[in-house]
């Protein structure tokens, strides 16, 4: 179910009054949220819900165990029962040929029970670690199988083939469940925080299941931290007109970013990236600009819609994008782009690898590993790995040259300061755009063609760039105002008539200029 679809509008119109009715009762509110979230997610494919339920059941127990709390038989039974009920319900809506999933789930439960026996007999300090391993194994295992199996097998076969060893290439027909990378990372972060003593997990599978599957952010984030979001599922959330109004405005702004900007510039990028060999320099540059705008508006738009919806329900989700294209250095870019993922990678990967604690060279290594894996998170293809490596490398260079510290020392409001800061911005946005070529290209060959196209001189005309200019300019003006005012939610401030007119303009633009047909959210595939 997409936020920008009629079926979602119907879903929310039916859900919201029920939510308002039960919202004062935490238990029933969370039950309603679970049912609604599972319906929302299961709309794609009911079978995907089994994976959500596996992750929920395992991490409910794993967080308790990793925090050093006893995991009672009751907790284990609740987890197993939850998984079985979800599996049974899903299979009732799935095709008959999927019935084999039930014995598989039962076998999984028995296997997990065996592992729990091992944990129970281990020394207390080791037990916490084992619970953490269970969470990592489950979530990363799901991710590895559904997202990376074919990629790994294909890559190994290619390497062996290059060594002259021909092996039969096994390729499974695996559907990638939407949002898998997001909810598995969110589940890992909760168990990890419990293990590190940063979060105290409570003993309610209903609250946790509602948190885990919360529909506004289930499929494309933001990847929330338990310490921020989980308490909200354990209390009655305030809900007033102001929250609903500001939430709705944020949702509408996100919808505008997605449907008016991203979806309208997408065809320009698609045309060039699907056939880069037959493009002029001008068209290629316009396509790179278009994709730069598209990916930002697509993902930032989704995050804004998620935050807006959550706020309409009284929940607060973290800011995921903070004007990233104004960044003056690559590290600033990553502090502003997909903040919930970059902070996740920092806290659970970069710091776990040692961060900057073991000398400069180790820091560079850790940075490279983090960015490589961050690239791989975005998709099972070597172009994503190269994109991650590219961002890792430019960050290493910037750190080696201390560019961030130097820029900190230069005041902006002087002629030299303006020149230096603007130059830094131009270099950074150019690097970011170069990175998007790697990210969007279907192969390295295509990326090479696109890069070489850019060195041509043909095809630079007003008509080539006009569509990107038309759709990007209002966004640019809004973001300049956001940057200068220091407020991201500008629709919530200022005189009433100005806010009303701005909101009206966005709604009218949505109705008049939404791209026909629309495009899927790019990050659903990650």
């Amino acid at each position, binding site marked *: 179910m997409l936020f920008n679809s009629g079926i979602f509008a119907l879903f929310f119109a039916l859900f919201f009054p029920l939510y*308002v*009715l039960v919202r004062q009762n935490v238990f029933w509110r969370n039950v309603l949220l679970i049912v609604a979230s599972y319906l929302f997610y299961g709309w794609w494919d009911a079978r995907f819900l089994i994976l959500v339920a596996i992750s929920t059941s395992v991490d409910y127990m794993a967080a308790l165990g990793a925090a050093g709390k006893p995991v009672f038989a009751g907790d284990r039974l609740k987890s197993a029962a939850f998984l079985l009920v979800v599996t049974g319900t899903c299979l009732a809506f799935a095709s008959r040929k999927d019935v084999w999933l039930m014995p598989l789930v039962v076998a999984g439960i028995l296997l997990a029970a065996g592992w729990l026996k091992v944990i129970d007999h281990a020394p207390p300090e080791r037990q916490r670690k084992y619970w953490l391993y269970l969470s990592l194994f489950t979530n990363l295992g799901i991710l590895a199988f559904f997202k990376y199996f074919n990629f790994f097998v294909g890559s190994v076969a290619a390497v062996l083939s290059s060594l002259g060893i021909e092996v039969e290439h096994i390729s499974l027909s695996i559907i990638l469940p939407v949002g898998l990378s997001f909810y598995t990372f969110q589940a890992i972060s909760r168990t990890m925080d419990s293990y590190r003593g940063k979060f105290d997990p409570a003993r309610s599978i209903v609250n946790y299941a509602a948190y885990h599957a919360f529909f506004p952010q289930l499929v494309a984030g933001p990847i929330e931290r338990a310490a921020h979001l989980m308490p909200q599922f354990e209390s009655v959330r*305030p809900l*007033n*007109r102001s929250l609903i109004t500001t939430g709705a405005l944020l949702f509408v702004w996100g919808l505008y970013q997605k449907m008016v900007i991203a979806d309208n510039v997408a065809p320009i990028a698609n045309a060039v990236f699907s056939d880069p060999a037959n493009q002029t320099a001008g068209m290629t540059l316009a396509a790179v600009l278009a994709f730069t705008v598209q990916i930002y508006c697509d993902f930032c738009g989704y995050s804004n819609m998620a935050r807006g919806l959550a706020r309409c329900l009284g929940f607060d989700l973290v800011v995921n994008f903070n004007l990233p294209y104004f960044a003056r250095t690559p590290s600033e870019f990553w502090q502003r782009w997909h903040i919930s993922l970059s902070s996740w990678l920092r806290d659970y990967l970069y710091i776990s690898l040692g961060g900057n604690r073991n000398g400069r060279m180790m820091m560079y290594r850790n940075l490279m590993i983090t960015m490589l894996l961050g690239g791989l998170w975005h998709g099972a293809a070597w172009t994503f790995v190269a994109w991650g490596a590219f961002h890792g490398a430019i960050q290493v260079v910037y750190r080696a040259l201390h560019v961030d510290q130097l820029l900190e020392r230069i005041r902006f409001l002087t002629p030299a300061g303006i020149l230096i800061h603007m130059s830094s911005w131009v270099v950074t946005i150019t690097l970011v755009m170069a990175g998007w070529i790697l990210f969007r290209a279907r192969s390295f060959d295509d990326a090479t063609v696109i890069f070489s196209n850019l060195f041509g001189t043909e095809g630079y005309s007003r008509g080539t760039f006009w569509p990107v200019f038309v759709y990007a300019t209002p966004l640019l003006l809004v973001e300049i105002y956001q940057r200068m005012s220091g407020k991201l939610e500008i629709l919530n401030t200022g005189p009433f008539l100005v806010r009303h007119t701005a909101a*009206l303009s966005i709604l*009218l633009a949505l109705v*008049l200029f939404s791209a026909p047909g629309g495009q899927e959210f790019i990050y659903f595939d990650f």
Partner: protein
Amino acid sequence: MISDPGAAADGSRSSGCGATSRGRGVALRLLKMVALTVYSLAFAEAFIRVFSPQALVPRYVTGTAWGIRGNIPNARYWHQTPEVKVQYRINSQGMRADREYPFQKPAGTCRIAVFGDSFLVGYELDLKDTFTTQLEQRLRAQGVRAEILNFSVSGFGTAEMLRAYEKFGRKFDPDLVLFEWHSTDPDDNVRSGLYRLDDGKIKVDRSQYLPGIRTQDSLMKFRLYRIIADNSHLYAFIRERVAGSVKRLLLTRRRALHGATTTAPGESAADNQGSSPARNWSSPDIKLSAALLIHAQHMVIAEHRDFYVVEIPNRTSRTQFRSTVERLPPDTRERLKIISPLAAFVRAARPDLKLYYEQGHGHLTPTGARILTEEALAAIEGSPQLARCASLSGEGPPQPSGMDLARHKQAWLRGSDAPGHRGSQ
């Protein structure tokens, strides 16, 4: 259920005041709401005018005594699109014409009755450029004392054309009857529900099909509404979308009632720009449409008149067009006399020449209508009915020879077709 932090404070304030001040407060709030609504509407109108000007194409239609839509008699109105501004004059009989027609055909006159939708009403065309006017002039130029009676109404499908002929058009005693065929007709025929196929035969299903007419009639009584309908871009935008949704709903309902589902998911009724994909000939709506055309042909021929179907092709780009009659089963096409301008459109197509308007509602340009007229003329020249009544008329100038006719045709086609002519830009 939803708490408002300011509500309690407001409540305590208002409870301390008297009934008068409370009433004043309510009135003030109402006034603010009205002012905000007026401001919002005015802003929306200005926004649409600046950023997305709409084609102003108000429909001046009403109900007729025979249970279907008709043009409002004696109406005068304008259509304005980014490409044209056109005035419409409807006579007292509901035809787009600047004269009246008696039921009794004048002696020595050939009458051709034309039934179609907005294409043959001549939407986006001045009266002089419409297919019917051009056809009449061309026939008269050839010495045939012809009267073209235009019974077309925007939105008509074959079913409504048939009903209009049965109940009204035949009273004018036409010699030739022309029915338009366009890709929207199969959907229109199902949607109207006027006829159904019963064991392969056409049966009357409903006596009336007047979608939205009662509302339209009530609103048209108000001058303010007419001003808004004629001039508001916001209204035009809303109207087109609401009408589109209602049409889709009606179609879905009719299909559900008759269990006829032929539209693939995501496929919608073709618009005037026409991009609806070809369909299965055995699908119920195509079968119904084909049967309606054959039924109309039988009825017309039984009354010793000649029957033709005029195809309006779909435009896929400025220089590419797609046949719409190919949607009809081959045996139906063989039995009908079809006037198709498709080949002529393809021959005439140039990147700098529009045969259909592209920014308004996608109807024919004067050039497109002229080519259609030429094709129709070539087809009906062979009509025995036309030959019979033309021979009776006897007053016109002598028939030009084949050579003269070809030269005349070339000159006439060039006519007002020069670059810079508004309709063809």
